[in-house]
């Protein structure tokens, strides 16, 4: 293991963080970084570095990191690019273990001096084995350690959980982060890779495969420099933890000038897709499904087969779910004789009692609904359950009635739901069920079905 890898542990779990460019001035990024650390309730030592003040946000500040006597594990840098090489030399001398380089103005700008700075800075940190997130990034967040090393304090509003996001775009990271808040999803870490001075996707995969806080790895990719290295790192970890990736930039198809048909059909995007398949990375093609899939993977076990039971309080939504499940290769098979008998005891014949089951006629009878759910969960033909229920005034107590059964099941087989009511009626009950891992809830039957589809798709490619 090289030094850089060893130091990544300290990068993400520092006891002390310096903010080089800290400021009380709201128009400076250094202000927002300080706010992120303090609002995020970072328990370790925060060391603002600013030659112009002796306190920033009420915390003792220092003119340079040399002037601080204690250890500095992580240095967040928000000063102009041309100052960065000297700052990093100081970091090396000080024994800093890792850095978040928020500053822009390196390879990404047209001016060739940017590229020179990039190379010069890379050489300094690579020689010392210091991992750097960035440059040109919003930063990174380690929620389980209350470490918000970014310029967006609001990332700390996210629930703690086991999903990590590694993103090539700051904008997408913010988008996904705020969408996730609306979906009540929990994250372990969010990393803005920026322009990847020395930390790229391949190192992130290696790191997160061993990170006990992370169960699902979510990637947003625009283009990777050393694609083979990335694919190799994913391939050697294939099946260990799910990696789901959204890649944008479809571009044009293949090299039209190619003399061979193969060459003219091998577009960059096709090759990325194929490489993901080959490495066991699940490809997703939009932000909403990316989050929906991560959410299901963070809570549910993987289904052991493709047979899904669809249980619904009303027939219509179940048809929407079934259409999608079947068009994506899952099966809505029959129950075993034993299960079907049980259901027939509990539902009158006017209901659709075979899979998908319309429990509407038993709306008044929570015990019946519980009985049906239990029987189906224990059916050996069934590998996963989609549960749908629309509020309808007369069934206001329905969730209370089935709460126990759902909670006790504890996701022995995946249970994914679309339970919907007008705002504020069932919200608390649904939240409680989700927090108890009883269900993973989605706003539409199609999204619930797609989450189940992607769990199974991952099983087939891992």
């Amino acid at each position, binding site marked *: 293991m090289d030094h850089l890898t060893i130091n990544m542990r300290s990068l993400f779990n520092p006891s002390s963080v310096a903010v080089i460019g800290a400021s009380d001035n709201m128009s400076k990024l250094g202000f927002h970084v300080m706010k992120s650390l303090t609002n995020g309730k970072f328990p370790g030592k925060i060391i603002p570095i600013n030659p112009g003040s002796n306190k920033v946000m009420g915390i003792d500040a220092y003119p340079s990191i040399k002037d601080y006597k204690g250890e500095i594990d992580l240095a967040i840098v928000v000063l102009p690019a041309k100052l960065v090489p000297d700052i990093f030399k100081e970091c090396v001398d000080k024994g800093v273990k890792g850095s978040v380089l928020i500053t822009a103005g390196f390879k990404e700008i047209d001016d060739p001096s940017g590229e020179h700075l990039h190379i010069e800075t890379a050489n300094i940190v690579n020689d010392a084995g210091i991992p750097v997130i960035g440059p040109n990034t919003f930063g990174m967040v380690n929620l389980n350690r209350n470490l918000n090393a970014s310029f967006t304090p609001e990332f700390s509003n996210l629930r703690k959980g086991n999903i990590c996001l590694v993103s090539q775009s700051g904008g997408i990271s913010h988008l996904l982060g705020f969408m996730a808040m609306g979906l009540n999803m929990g994250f372990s870490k969010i990393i803005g890779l920026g322009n990847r001075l020395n930390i790229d996707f391949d190192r992130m995969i290696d790191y997160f495969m061993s990170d006990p806080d992370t169960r699902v790895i979510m990637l947003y990719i625009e283009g990777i420099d050393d*694609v*083979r290295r990335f*694919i190799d790192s994913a391939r050697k970890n294939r099946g260990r933890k799910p990696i789901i990736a959204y890649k944008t930039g479809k571009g044009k198809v293949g090299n039209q000038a*190619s*003399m*061979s*048909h*193969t*060459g*003219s*059909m*091998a577009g*960059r995007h*096709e*090759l990325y897709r*194929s*490489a993901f*398949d*080959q490495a066991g990375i699940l490809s997703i093609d939009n932000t909403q499904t990316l989050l929906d899939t991560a959410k299901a993977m963070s809570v549910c076990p993987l289904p052991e087969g493709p047979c899904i039971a669809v249980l619904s309080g009303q027939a219509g939504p179940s048809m929407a779910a079934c259409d999608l499940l079947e068009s994506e290769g899952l099966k809505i098979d029959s129950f075993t004789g034993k299960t079907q008998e049980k259901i027939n005891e509990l539902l009158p014949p006017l209901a659709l009692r075979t899979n998908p089951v319309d429990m509407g006629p038993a709306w008044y009878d929570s015990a019946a609904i519980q009985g049906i759910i239990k029987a189906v969960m224990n059916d050996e033909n069934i590998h996963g359950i989609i549960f749908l229920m629309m509020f309808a005034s007369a069934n206001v107590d329905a969730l209370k009635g089935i709460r126990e059964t759902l909670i006790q099941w504890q996701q022995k087989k995946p249970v994914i739901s679309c339970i919907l009511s007008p705002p504020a009626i069932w919200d608390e009950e649904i939240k409680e069920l989700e927090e108890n891992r009883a269900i993973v809830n989605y706003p539409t039957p199609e999204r619930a079905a797609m989450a189940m589809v992607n769990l199974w798709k991952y099983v087939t*490619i891992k």
Partner: protein
Amino acid sequence: MEIITNALKEGRTVLSEHESKEVLAYYQIPVSREIPVDNTEALIAAAQKIGYPLVLKGCSSEISHKTEKGLIYLDIRNENEARNAFDKITKDIGDLKGSVLVQEMIKGQRELVIGLTRDPQFGPCVMFGLGGIFTEILKDISFRLAPLEKRDALEMMQDIKAHKILDAVRGMEPADKEILVDILINVGKIGIENEEVKEIDINPVILSGGKPVAADALIILEKPNV
């Protein structure tokens, strides 16, 4: 490989169909039996050796896509037809350096395409798909990066929309997937072991009673970056 180094020495970057098939055969990829001829006596002898029905093709490193140039004659049943086709091809090739390929006619309704491309970022990539005249219209293809493992080859065959064509459909035998797996892996090997190979088109690979045979081949070279 000698064929490759010789071609590059001659300043050529395209191997003829016959040369391309020699490379494939070297890597254990099943190719159609064929004999290049450049005169009528050799033609008749070759036709007798290979046996009717035959395919006659213009073969030259200067022709890469024969259907467009009308240089293929299928289903040649006898000596007369062979002589006629030979004359027509020789006239059409004209001044281009080349010969006429006397080839067994592979019987089979299902055609696949297998290829290789060397991408500057991804390196050598193997392609598999629905072949024949529909290749560029339907683009029902899949890719994997070389070197391929058996799992990759099997998965890429399932990835195409028309993958059921490999099953026992409409009274035809199922495709021999073991041989197809080996072909895919070996096409990848050609790319890994020969830096000068830039692209390979094998289209069609005809399933004859389930057994895949390369009925045509094109290999494009480039001088590797030193």
